């Protein structure tokens, strides 16, 4: 509060506000970020919450002015930051279109020329003439988006609002944005949806606590983003259970800790057992950092394969032929249960899967390509 007053007074009197010096309780939300975006390019900005992405976007929009440094923008800027900006619940959809369009910078002539197109895009039918307070949230967003998308700016700034509306509407939005991009519109997209970032951006800026890291390769940037969330301090072998009084597992050997999609993963473990265990259940579970919660699984029971662990010193080898995980950290968990569901082995092994070139998807599949002459 006092800082605000001080700033205003200094600006008024004509003194520089010495904004490049931090005062107590202040911190740099965006610190020393420099980049260039050329016409028609599209950039994705990703990062954890609170890293300065939206602040950066607002600076590009001209809402905040930089305290240090310079921003040069050439062309009309449009923002999809708040859908339905300026909508008043008491006004009808029709009236709100005019208000919203004016706030976004469209002139009277422009609004009138595009009015029909906006109404058609929003596709809310007769509800256009009812007060907006009666709209469902979906209709609200459709109308807001319809106006914003028709702004047709030279530079489009999008802040995490791509996932709105139902699927049909989402497709319409993507198509319209794609159309505008073909006409040379520049896009800056902030999102947590890595698929959208991969589909939309040609390069990526990763923000972390106000500092920017630039990546010309989107897949690389996405991977670094995922890495930020992995507390691989425990990226070590974790052995929760290595046997019981009758059997001990030791001396594991793994073919590689860094794999490419499609590589075989092979773990072999030596054990020493006093008893013979018949019909054990062996499971391999693979967790990928792309999709926490989902997992790949291989279990011998699914194949109807009965496995017995003979007593004495033996070596058990389990191999998976073709793991399709692309560009992620993963954990392979090997678990062995006895027939009576007693836990014998529970080990977790971190594995890194490198990225496949040109492939940005979470999982990489091999395909076969054939061309035949057709008569």
């Amino acid at each position, binding site marked *: *509060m006092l800082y*605000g*007053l001080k*700033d*205003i007074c*200094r*600006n*008024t009197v*004509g*003194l*520089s*506000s010495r*904004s*490049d010096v931090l005062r107590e309780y202040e911190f740099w939300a965006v610190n020393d970020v420099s980049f260039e975006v050329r016409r028609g390019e599209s950039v994705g900005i990703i990062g954890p919450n609170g890293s300065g992405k939206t602040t950066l976007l*607002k*600076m590009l*929009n*001209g*809402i*905040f*002015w*930089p*305290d*240090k*440094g*310079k*921003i*040069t*923008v*050439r*062309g009309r*800027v449009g*923002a999809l*930051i*708040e859908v339905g*900006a*300026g909508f*008043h619940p*008491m*006004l009808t959809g029709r*009236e709100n279109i*005019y*208000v919203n369009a*004016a*706030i*976004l*910078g469209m*002139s*009277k002539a422009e609004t009138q020329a595009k009015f029909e197109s906006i109404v058609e895009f929003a596709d809310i039918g007769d509800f256009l003439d009812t*007060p907006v307070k009666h709209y469902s949230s979906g209709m609200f967003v459709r109308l807001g988006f319809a106006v914003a998308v028709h702004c047709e700016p*030279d530079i489009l700034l999008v802040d995490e609002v791509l996932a709105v509306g139902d699927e049909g509407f989402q497709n319409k939005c993507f198509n319209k944005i794609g159309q505008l991009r073909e006409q040379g519109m520049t896009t800056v997209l902030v999102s947590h949806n890595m698929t959208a970032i991969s589909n939309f951006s040609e390069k990526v800026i990763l923000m972390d606590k106000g500092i920017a890291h630039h990546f010309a390769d989107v897949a690389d940037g996405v991977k670094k983003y995922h890495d930020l969330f992995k507390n691989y301090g425990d990226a070590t072998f974790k052995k929760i259970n290595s046997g019981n009084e009758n059997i001990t597992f030791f001396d594991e050997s793994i073919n590689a800790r860094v794999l490419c999609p499609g590589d075989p993963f092979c773990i072999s473990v030596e054990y020493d057992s006093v008893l013979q265990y018949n019909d054990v259940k062996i499971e391999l579970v693979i967790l990928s950092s792309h999709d926490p919660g989902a997992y790949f699984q291989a279990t011998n029971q699914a194949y109807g394969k009965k496995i017995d662990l003979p007593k004495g010193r033996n070596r058990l080898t389990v191999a998976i032929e073709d793991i399709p995980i692309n560009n992620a950290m993963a954990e392979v968990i090997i678990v062995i249960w006895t027939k009576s569901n007693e836990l014998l082995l529970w080990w977790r092994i971190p594995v890194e899967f490198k990225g496949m070139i040109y492939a940005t998807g979470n999982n990489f599949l091999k395909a076969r390509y054939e061309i035949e002459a057709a008569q």
Partner: protein
Amino acid sequence: MNERSRVTNGLREAITYEPDNSLKKGYSAIFREISKELKANRWLIFQLFKRDFLAIYKQSFIGIMWAIILPLVTAGTFVVLNGAGVFNAGSISVPYALYAVLGIAIWSLFSTGLIAGANSLVTAGALITKINFSKKSLVIASMGQIVLSFSIQLCLVVVLLAYYRFVPSAAIVLIPLLVIPLVLFTLGLGFMLSLLNSILRDIGNMLSVLVTFLLFLTPILYAKPTAGVLAVFTTYNPLYYLVVVPRDLALIGTTSAWNGFVLASALAAGIFLICLIIFHLTETRVAERV
């Protein structure tokens, strides 16, 4: 300080944002920027005004008539008090009801205009932090509502004129012109207060109290006192001239305070320009703190 500069570069203008001393560029550049912005935003101002207008008067049975109720009630109270002898308005040559209603109507331009202006940025706070648009338009659009209410109150005055069969001077048609200095004064202060209010919310809260206080201190509902502290205060109170002189000219045709009115108008114009410039130089700070 922060500077905006527009440079025509081929087909597209380049906008630069950087911290710098805007005043180094000189006042002429600032004036050009401001007038360009205002010209470009006429449609936006109209839309904002229309939005607020529709929002107030839809779903309202009394609708536009609300504009009349406040001055009617305030003036009416004083008419009753005056008639009962409780309140001595001094020597007034026109029917007191007319005197009070027209006086309050003009005063409302200032009082409601100031409060509306001061709150205009705060109420649109959510919008300001998300979209970059002309903040001056918000303040000006809020004043538009007040001017509209004033025009409706003038209709009430016409009704009263007919009721009292009172013939005003020919200057009554000049009222729209005569209140322009007051509007400028209010708008200027509105710019200043809206800035400060967005940072110190106390200001908005205090304002209605302050304005009521001023109403009683300024001789609008009573004749100008001739002696004492109040007389001295009134001589230097620009509001007195800006409100009372248009009323006197409209109802009576002559006024003794013309010189004061001219000075007050000059002051109003000066305040308007200064506050507009201050607003222009600092408006982006609002987005940081509103």
